[in-house]
């Protein structure tokens, strides 16, 4: 379990993480979601004792990271894919990590096999693709067979097969009872991987709930109606207490499903050209939720001053 309590990190006048509290429970995948610059990586570095919190605290299984006698056996972390010396081979990179925590050398071959890098283990990692580097980073995270796994943006740079592999791996790790904390700025990816979500924006927690709850609460849906008798249809639906908004030639109806809307219009003897259920994507929900907390927003060309 990872527990953050009022964790804060400021860099000069800039607050990167603003008093966030959350817990990451074992046995499930917890997604750590937020736009770029929201404070995800800073938080993860504080979990690992690399950055010192300005105030507040974060513990892993009740202890500060620095207090673990052999931390790689307690927490495995993928922080940046390229935290590697390009001139060192994959095997040598894992060898020194293993040696640092008294982990037997046989484990190096095990994790190489696990991430599928055995064939290229003796190549210098400077030649690795982004995806291979990411796999090596994951091998490094698992070298100590740790009960807690922290992965910062693990699918960055991976091909679709690699993305699926990381997703399955994260779920398998959680199924083994481990604590799995995965950050991402991609809502759609997290929806497939995570059981629980902690959403942050501008250093604050915006949501902390299960993934289904998040979807139910934030992914809105409406029924799209097109009719040559636009105004009459709108009047009928409003009379039945539905929320109807006109957007050009279409009506967006909330409060009733497709069948119900169709029946109401039919009973009134009106014509329909289109009747569709529109579900706003999770990505949209996430965008809406974090809209105010995006650090570097692109201004649409037309709106530029």
């Amino acid at each position, binding site marked *: 379990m990872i527990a953050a309590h009022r964790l804060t990190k400021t860099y000069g006048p800039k607050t990167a993480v603003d008093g966030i509290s959350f817990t990451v429970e074992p046995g499930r995948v917890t997604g750590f979601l937020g736009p770029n610059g929201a404070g995800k990586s800073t938080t993860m*570095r504080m979990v690992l004792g*690399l950055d010192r919190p300005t105030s507040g605290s974060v513990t892993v299984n009740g202890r500060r990271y620095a207090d673990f*006698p052999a*931390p790689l056996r307690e927490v495995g972390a993928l922080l940046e894919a390229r935290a590697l010396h390009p001139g060192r081979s994959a095997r040598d990179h894992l060898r*020194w990590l293993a*040696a640092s*925590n*008294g982990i037997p050398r046989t484990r190096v071959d095990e994790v190489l096999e696990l991430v599928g890098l055995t064939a290229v283990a003796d190549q210098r990692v400077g030649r690795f693709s982004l995806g291979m580097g990411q796999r090596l980073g994951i091998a490094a995270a698992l070298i100590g067979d740790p009960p807690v796994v922290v992965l910062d943006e693990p699918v960055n740079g991976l091909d679709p097969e690699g993305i699926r592999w990381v997703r399955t791996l994260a779920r398998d790790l959680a199924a083994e009872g481990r604590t799995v904390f995965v950050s991402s700025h991609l809502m759609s990816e997290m929806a497939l991987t995570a059981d629980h979500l902690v959403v942050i924006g501008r250093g604050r927690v915006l949501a902390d709930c299960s993934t289904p709850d998040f979807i139910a609460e934030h992914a809105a849906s409406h029924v799209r109606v097109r009719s040559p008798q636009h105004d009459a249809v709108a009047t009928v639906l409003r009379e039945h207490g539905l929320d109807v908004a006109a957007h050009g030639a279409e009506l967006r109806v909330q409060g009733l499903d497709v069948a119900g809307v169709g029946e109401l219009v039919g009973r009134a003897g009106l014509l329909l050209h289109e009747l569709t259920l529109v579900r706003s994507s999770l990505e949209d929900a996430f965008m809406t939720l974090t809209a105010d907390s995006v650090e570097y927003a692109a201004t649409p060309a037309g709106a530029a001053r």
Partner: protein
Amino acid sequence: MTVVGTHAWTRQETPARTSGATTLRAEWIKFWTVRSTTWSVAAMFVLGAGLTALVCATSAGWLASSEADEPVGAFITWGMMFAQVTAIVLGTLAVTSEYGTGMIRATLSATPRRGEVLAAKAAVLTGTLFVAGVLTALAGYLAGNWFLDREGIGLALTDDGVLRALVGSGLYMAGLGLLAAAVGLLVRHTAAALSIVLGLVFVVGNMTMLLPGAWGEWTTKLMPGNAGARIATPESFNPLLLDPWAGFAVFAAEVAVVLAVAAAAFSRRDA
């Protein structure tokens, strides 16, 4: 389903804690699994031993003649003046390569006790440089002395200062490497650290000789490259320098101060 691990070995086979020994082992592996280490050590040997042999070969006749106005002892470890560069490069890279690549975060998440990391790094670096420095100086002495012997002006190992210069070469290389590593830890940038240390030892150290009066003389004596290098040669071209051991003590103290500042910064700041 992927089987990630059994935990079995975690509980049974090994002591579940890190120590100075495991950290040292990790730093040793790191140090020797990048090519820059092998290249730097090889370059030290080629420059240090090779140039000493070369200068002795070409100067032996002149040194044996009545025209000679330089001490023979200043030639027998002559190449170490150039080998210094490789010690500085090696010391710098041992630290800055970790910052350049982001590896430092992997290092510190494996061993959060930063003092231990620094001590292990320093031990591996100075140990290697000491051995490499002594062997290089010894090889240079053996090769160079062969030419000097032919002219009848060879130096025996037991001659005044010869053995001290060979051991001193190792000590000076180790000290320079440590100085470079400390500066690297402070500035966390390869080019910046190299410029500072190379500039300090080779440029500033010589420019202070231009300063006037006793003040300039003492500044020159105390510059790290001037104070430390004297121990690596039986006799010096420059008679103004401090005595070998006194000079080395000054040099060691300077290295210790820079290292202490670097260690304080390292233990406090974010990785």
